[in-house]
């Protein structure tokens, strides 16, 4: 098994593709955490923990859910809204949950407004601008997600989660696969369950611990 671990960056300007470092994708029913195959159970807990720990936990819905291509997409959008509302309810004062869309993939130079959107070709701009330290991709096509996750790992210290509808993302720090409405709802439930049990990074920093 590979020694390489998919960890928050900044790794360096051009981090390697995790796949090229031997990181494998989970089988159906599994997930991965930092590039190590884990049970889905464990991944829900860890994703919820990361969200609750973050100063600015953020969901980035992509075109596959922002646009109502079909009924399934619209239902996923509803579940994502629910996840965001849950996250908003569960964070503590000083934490700020955000929901920022990735409407399309065009490299919109120089017009990107990092307050209202994220672009896969320069995701770091939105992450830096809003001081996002934990994010989840959902509804982003594989190739754009991989590119974007790699850029985030290269240039920021943001923790990345992928709620992937296909086989998972090795370039995220934590990845689910076969995303469905049920899985998104289950993540929301886990966040609700863990509410109040996770110390936000905010607090730790205030206490003098390193963040």
């Amino acid at each position, binding site marked *: 098994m590979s020694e390489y671990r998919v960890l928050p960056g900044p790794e360096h300007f051009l981090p390697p593709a995790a796949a090229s470092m031997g990181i494998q994708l989970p089988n159906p029913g599994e997930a991965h955490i930092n590039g190590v195959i884990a049970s889905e159970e464990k991944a829900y807990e860890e994703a919820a923990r990361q969200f609750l720990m973050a100063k600015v936990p953020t969901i980035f819905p992509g075109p596959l859910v922002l646009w109502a291509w079909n009924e399934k997409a619209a239902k996923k959008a509803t579940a994502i809204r629910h996840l965001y509302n849950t996250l908003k309810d569960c964070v503590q004062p000083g934490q700020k949950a955000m*929901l920022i869309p990735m409407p399309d993939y065009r490299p919109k*130079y120089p017009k990107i407004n990092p307050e209202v959107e994220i672009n896969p070709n320069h995701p770091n701009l939105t992450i830096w601008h809003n001081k996002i330290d934990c994010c989840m991709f959902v509804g982003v096509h594989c190739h754009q997600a991989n590119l974007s996750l790699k850029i985030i790992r290269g240039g920021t210290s943001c923790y990345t989660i992928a709620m992937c509808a296909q086989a998972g993302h090795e370039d995220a720090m934590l990845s689910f696969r076969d995303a469905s409405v049920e899985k998104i709802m289950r993540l929301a439930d886990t966040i609700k369950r863990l509410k109040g049990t996770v110390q936000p990074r905010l607090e730790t920093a205030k206490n003098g611990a390193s963040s």
Partner: protein
Amino acid sequence: MSKERIQISEDLYDIMPSDYQDLVKSATYGKEDRGWKDIGSSKELIEQHSLCAGCPESMAFRYILASLPNPEDTVMVGSTGCTSLVFPMVAVHNIHSLFGNQNAIASGLKRALSVRFPGRVKDVVVLAGDGATVDIGLDMTLQAWFRQEKFTTICFDNELYANTGGQESGLMQKGFVAKMAPVGKLFDKVRLPEIARESGCHYVVNCTVSKPSLVEKVIRNAVHVAREIGPTYLQLYTPCILEIGKNSMEGLQEMRDSEKPTERFAYKEYVSEPAKQLLAELAAKDKERKAAAKQLASQASA
């Protein structure tokens, strides 16, 4: 196809940037007789552009995007140059190709689209500068025409390499001195419209973009002929005001001056026999449709 496929998920509607909301609300996707007159009363398919202020390429882009007959099912192929700065702001599917490769990419794309979507009309439109079309990409341009590939090639002819600071291009006029071509061009402007005709293009037009109604007409014709018959070519004068020392307000006059009957951008058109027949049929259908609509309107008001 119409706007039905372009709907934002209700639960995420409020977080979408306003330009996307506007596209859904008031862009002209699916509108049968869309054209340049929609500019000002509907959401344009070009958001902003990063061209020089007053660059005629920006006018050309706006007219072309307003005139495409089938924007929701069109894929545009661009190439490196000033035009490529605009595509990121364009709400029509587009592919950026390596400089000069645009007609090769479009050939594969058009074929792949017809295999992937056999029952649906998919238009492919190449839009590239003169350097990309006539110099570095000439091989790909011509080969696509020889092979009778069914897509439209549009060349924004600004008679030099604008994006890299003004080098000599095949379409530059003889004797012209540019910032990075100080000796002056030693050869005549390449006669690409004639070459296009001889290479198998069924509809060829050489003109400026001073008149939006004319741009609308030639774009529609070129796309329809390419869809049904074979390759089409439009060479549009979009002067680089920066390189010819004009200010932002002078682009339009420059085009008007250059389209006079004896000038190099006097309107020139070539239409093959099958294309003539097709355009006549389309015009007849259009007339019928308009007459029917008029009758319906008068019945409704009676």
